[in-house]
């Protein structure tokens, strides 16, 4: 609407040259403003996306040598035992982190949102702080915290369980313990981060709704179900979906924790690590693209299911 009036005005004979320039400028400005983005986006965003579809049907050796094999990459992928391990590990990790992380984050947020809490900012700062450390740095730090005999974690657990957990528990060398170690580390990193979202959502819930519920004689549990849960549902869905997506892209943490390996019995092999190893260590970029698309479609499917269950689409239409 604005553009048509501008156009009419621009052609108006009574406008001075300066005014005409101003209006012309207003029309071309948005194109100039978004053009750097569009150009970069076309070259480094859109082109690689389209190209990766094509590339996924080739077997390649480095960037120069490619042979068309149709859906061969996907067929190979479905039968590769290592890929199965990677998927199993990634799904297990995603399941446990999301199931443990969200209740913990919501619980902390509920505690912190009590109106009488003093020093809320300080608690929030402390809870959030682990998230400032990149996964690589956390991986290096925790690889030392996890060491047998002297590691802080084993010392603490040994003391806390009165010797129930052995001092020489090998968190990163025992295939059965690698997953718990990964989940524990990611809880440390991300619970506070997700708590920030829940806290913001809880503080945005209309206080009058609680008053009304109290007047109606609702107890705290009923208030939680009737007022808090609907109030935080959009944010809870956002946290659920984003943390699931993040979990499925796990790479740096196990890679650095396990000293650039997939761990014994591939117990720390994730889908992205599998992609990295095949694409950039072995040099098959075509296969890496196939793995990438498989991951993307899997994540998309799970996100859609999650949004279906939490009723996000329904909410959006209302």
């Amino acid at each position, binding site marked *: 609407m604005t553009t048509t009036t501008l156009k009419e005005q621009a052609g108006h004979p009574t406008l001075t040259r300066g005014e005409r320039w101003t209006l012309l400028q207003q029309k071309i400005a948005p194109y100039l403003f978004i053009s750097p983005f569009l150009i970069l986006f076309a070259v480094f965003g859109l082109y690689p996306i389209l190209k990766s579809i094509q590339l996924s049907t080739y077997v390649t050796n480095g960037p120069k040598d490619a042979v068309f094999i149709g859906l061969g990459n996907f067929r190979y992928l479905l039968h590769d035992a290592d890929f199965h391990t990677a998927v199993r590990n990634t799904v297990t990790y995603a399941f446990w982190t999301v199931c443990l992380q969200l209740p913990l984050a919501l619980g902390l947020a509920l505690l912190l949102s009590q109106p009488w809490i003093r020093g809320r900012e300080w608690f929030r700062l402390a809870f959030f702080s682990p998230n400032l450390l990149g996964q690589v740095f956390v991986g*290096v730090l925790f690889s030392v915290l996890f060491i047998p005999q002297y590691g802080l974690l084993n010392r603490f657990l040994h003391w806390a369980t009165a010797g129930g957990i052995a001092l020489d528990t090998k968190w990163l060398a025992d295939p059965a313990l690698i997953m718990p170690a990964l989940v524990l580390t990611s809880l440390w990193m991300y619970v506070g981060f997700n708590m920030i979202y829940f806290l913001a959502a809880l503080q945005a819930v209309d206080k009058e709704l609680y008053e009304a519920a109290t007047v109606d004689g609702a107890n705290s549990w009923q208030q939680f179900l009737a007022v808090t849960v609907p109030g935080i549902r959009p944010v809870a869905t956002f946290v659920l979906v984003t943390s699931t997506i993040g979990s499925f*892209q796990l790479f740096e943490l196990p890679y*650095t924790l396990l000293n650039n390996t997939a761990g014994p019995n591939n117990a720390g092999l994730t889908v992205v690590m599998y992609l990295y190893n095949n694409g950039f260590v072995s040099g098959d970029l075509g296969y890496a693209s196939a793995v990438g698309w498989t*991951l993307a479609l899997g994540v998309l499917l799970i996100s859609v299911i999650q949004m279906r269950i939490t009723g996000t689409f329904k909410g959006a239409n209302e």
Partner: protein
Amino acid sequence: MTTADATTTPASATPASAAPAPPRLRPLAVGGRILIYVMLCLATVSALTPVVWLLAASTKGPQDLFSHTFFAVEWGKVGGITLPVGIRATLKNFQELFTTVPFFRYILNSVFFASTSVVVQLFLSSLAGYGLAKYDFWGKKAVMILMISTLMIPGQVTMAPAYELLYRFGFVDTYHGLIIPGAVSVFGIFLFRQAFLQVPNELIHAARIDGCSEFRIYWDVVMPVSRPMVGAFCLISFMGAWNSFLWPQILLHTNTRYTLPIGLNQMVGLYQQQYGMLMAGTLISVLPVIVLFLLLQREFVAGLTAGAVKG
């Protein structure tokens, strides 16, 4: 007993929040409050302990590293009572770090990469965000739809073709190869668009009447009033670049071009047993982000949750 406390506390606390003057607390409520503080403190301790340990470990000599859990506290008798009189600390780990590996170079590389990324991303993302927030133009809807749809495709999909492309451009093992492909972030554009939508149109009209060019309006009027979002975005994009590992790991091949995550990760393989040195390197690597965060904390939390809560 404990669980009963935990579940009843919100009941007594929530109505109190509604009333301006909270009613006198029952003993159970007091117990509940103490319990909540205890739980919050426990969570705080578990969040901070690894970082405190890191600080301690990087300042301890090899003889103290595992014999003291945290800092190597020295005890002495003061007037017959045993008291902590000092901490045995050393900078040897740091000295070792800078002499065994080109760690200073890694720091410079990371600083250069991260700060250049922030400046470029901030400028291009906010500019595009402004274009999308305050103008109606042909094709705007198509651009928005395109952006949203690519947000759903994870970066791993495009890694292989992007590498191939950079290889053809001769960008492998260079910093422009790291910076240019990530120069605009779709996420950042959305963040800025959201922030700029809040800027009153009257302000922009007034600037236009005063004869400001469109770019001057963006630069001198809209950006300054959106300072919180600028602060938040700077921190988010600095963290993203500073902590990024996979893409630099793929792209950089020369040791002297490594950024901190790549350099440190390689050190772990080479000097596995030199914990003190590794922890010193980790400490240096995480400090800049922590400092920046403390400076921009308020803006950051506001920016982080803006999209999720309002949108």
